[in-house]
């Protein structure tokens, strides 16, 4: 059974008198441990799809299951619980919290998962170590380079030990050297067993993954 499966996933938003189709009958699946890249031209609906997969967006039709659980039949609360348990999110422009240090940024997802303080400290220390950013732990995001910030962004996504990482153009704002570094990191995580879904414009990045899903005008093209 795939970890993620969508069938006839459709999203529309009202526009004028009619509706604007953002996604149309999207059928896709991601198996546990897979590294999938979503590609497509700008405006194709990649970010829209990722937000639905990340369960921020509940306003769609069709069917979407995670590990066999039907998302459309979950209450908002249960959906949020499931999200906390399964998903780690990486943003194109890092979206670290400015007022918080690197270590504090890593702490945020754990807090929202009600992890006890002791445990949080050791997890954060562990992750800082794994990502080799211990020296940076007390710096603020503005004191880091873009690549370093995204490193923290990814560290923050995996700190809660999610089953799947959703990354929306994680290297979109980076130089190619830095981008390569990030993709190497994804590869390492992938080899460690983490499921990854990334949105990317670059074939080079897509090559790090197992498989590409192409999106065009809200439809999956084969």
């Amino acid at each position, binding site marked *: 059974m795939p970890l993620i499966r969508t069938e006839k996933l459709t999203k529309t938003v009202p526009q004028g008198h009619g509706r604007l189709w953002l996604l149309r009958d999207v059928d896709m699946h991601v198996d546990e441990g897979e590294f999938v890249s979503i590609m497509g031209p700008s405006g194709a609906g990649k*970010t829209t799809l990722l*937000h639905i997969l*990340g369960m*921020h*967006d509940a306003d769609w039709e069709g069917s979407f299951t995670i590990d066999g659980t039907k998302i459309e039949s979950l209450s908002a609360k249960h959906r*949020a619980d499931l*999200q*906390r348990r399964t998903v780690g*999110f990486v*943003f194109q*422009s890092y*979206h670290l*919290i*400015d*007022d918080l240090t690197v270590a504090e940024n890593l702490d*945020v*997802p754990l807090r*929202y*998962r009600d992890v006890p303080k002791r445990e949080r400290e050791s997890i954060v220390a562990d992750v800082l170590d794994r990502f080799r950013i211990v020296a940076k732990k007390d710096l603020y995001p*503005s004191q880091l380079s873009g690549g370093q910030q995204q490193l923290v962004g990814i560290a*923050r996504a995996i700190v*809660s030990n999610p089953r799947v990482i959703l990354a929306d153009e994680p290297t979109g704002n980076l130089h190619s050297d830095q981008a390569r570094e990030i993709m190497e990191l994804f590869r390492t995580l992938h080899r460690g067993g983490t499921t990854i879904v990334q949105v990317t414009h670059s074939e080079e990045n897509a090559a790090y993954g197992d498989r590409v899903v192409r999106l065009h005008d809200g439809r999956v093209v084969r």
Partner: protein
Amino acid sequence: MILRALRSLLRQPAAPAIAVITLALGLAISTALFTVARDVVLRPFPIREQDRVAAIWSHVPSRSVPHLEITYAEYELIRAQAKSLEDMAALSAANFDVVMNIPDPVQVRANFVTRTFYPLLGAHAQRGRLFIDAEHTPKSPNSMLISDRLWRTLFGSRNVIGKVIDVQGTQCTIVGVLPPDLNVPAFADVVFTMEPNFINASEADRNNSVLEGLARLKPGVTLATAQSEINTICARLESVNRDQYGGVRKKLIPFVNEVLGTTRPAMITLFVMSLLVLAIATFNVANIFVARAVTRQRDLAIRAALGATRSALLRETLAETTLVALFAAAIGFVVAQGAVLLLTRVAPETVPRIDQVHVSLTTYLFAAAASLVVALLCAGVASLRRGGWMSLREDIDRAHAAQRSRKLLAILAGVQLTVALVLLTSAALMMRSFASISSIDAGFSRERVLTAQLPLPGAPYSDAAVRRRFFATLLDRLRSAPGVSAAGATLIRPLELEVGWDWTYTAEGQTADTQVKNPLANLVAITPGYLEAMGIPLLRGRAFNDHDNEKSDKVMIVGRAFAMRHWGTIDVVGKRVKSGKLDSDKPWRTIVGVAGDVRYRGLMVDKLDVYHPYTQSPWTPQYVALRTTVSPRAAEATLRSIVKSMDPHVPVAAVRTTEDLVEAKIAQPRLNAWIIGVFAAVSMLLSIIGVYAVLNYAVRNRVGEMGVRLALGARGNDLLRLVLREAVFVASGASIAGAIASLFVTRVLAGFLYGVARVEPLTLLAVVVAIIAAALAGSVVPAIRASRIDPVVALRDGTSWR
């Protein structure tokens, strides 16, 4: 330009509307209170160089009697000897009542002054003239001056100069009308010359302590220098005449303090508070504009990138701010007028010059302009900040600028809460003080007692026996009138004046040493029936009756405190007390009764009470008191008709229920509590708005961050808490700062607090809770807004964030 600013404001009307309301409210309240403070305190009196004028009072250091009147003899002596004084004048320390027949009898408050009085003040007549020297001689042609108030009310502003009026049987000519704002002698409606009463008078009259002295210091002479010279003169007088001047000293009090009395610190506090409220309102407006400028930074940056110049952008902000200020000023002016009207209505009559208070346009415009400038500065600085619109490229800088502005705004909100806390503490103290003042037991019944003054006109009543007969008959007839259950008369009713008859006495068994320590007792001459009519409880012995007369043994009734002080018990019937010092040859009086203590001189003035039967005293009663079975107001008609049937020329004046008497004394503390209460309420409201503006801005600024947090697993409640925590943080800071500031402010207030410890921990705690509640109230809307953020929208729009 203006139209474009208006359109821009109307596109997002909420913030500008709040700014307008805030500023209007702040302007209105602060100018209203400033105006009251200014017109009562800060505006100079129409007196030439008032700083050089001082009042002169006697005091007896050994008896800690603060305020004694001076005598005419002392006026002449000091005036002749003091070299540091340019001149000295005197007036009656208390107004006296006279009855003018025009032709119906009207009782008015009168005073008399020495020849030097008006020249010393440098005053001029509004109409006619002041007194001439010939009028200050024993052969004075009976001239008088009238007050502006009397001129307007009684004479309808007609020409009255030269008009001859019957004053208690003497024909007096009005020679002038006094200027409206010269309230010395305070509240006197008629002024006569003093010299005719004293120049050829008996030694006893000349040594009667009834006057207040006024001095004008020579240029360059300090109050201290003048005081020490007068001390020397007093010492000299003492060495010449121990009997008369033993232990008596004089003290100089700056005239302004004298006239304004306790009103001055109150009004200065008012003034400071009005500035604080205006400051809060201005901070708020600045807050709103800073927030507006920052949220529009990107917008402005893009426009700047498209070629708009710095000054064009600045002009736009300024145009908007100005527009808001103009609206606010217009609304605020109307509200200020209303507030002043309200204040002068609730203010007690005894607040000097309260009737002359009016909002001046210049004051108002000044306040409006001042707050506008501050608001503009804040908005301007915010929109011109480096890292603001200059750096479209530099995301990091912008994020930092936004963060710095947020800190600045939080500090402004904190300042507002601090001020609100201080005002709230003050208000709480004032209200508790007011509560304890109004709960003072004045010692008499406040229900169903009517009192009135019956000033018997001079001519037919110059003989004391006639006056006493009049009162005896009147009381008899009143007692048998329907609706009256008891009636009595007294020399002076409680809470009438702050002065009264001070009685020096010796209790039987006292030595010279203990006698000297006796305080001056408050002496009241009363008729039988007075205690019963007033509802003053008789604790021991008996009340006076008709057998206590000129020929019977001399008797007296003492108050409970008098008995307790001298004998430690109230079982003192039979003990004896006499007038004067130990060696006086006055006869002993036997105590026949002990009455409950009464606050005669003021609600907060504790004195020992002594009652003499009027038949055994040199005085005749002035006031009647009726205990009624009907409403006291209904008994007024009965009183009037009985008096009229006895003698139509006797005025029934100053009719007051005992409730009125107490009420008049509570008015000032109530006004104080009200004013500070209004201040506190307004500043609370303003700081709620302030907190709202700050947090609302913060939330709007952090939408992107909130979206990220949601994506990282935050629940709506987590975000709600995030915002509330900021509010609590700001409020806690404000609480600490405010609590410290309160300690200082309440020390200033201590002077007019009664029955309240300076800072009560419980009060402070309650106020802190209120402040935190206010901060939370201000943060509710932004917090709910934050908790409802849709992560998808936030993340989408959030790309513009950072």
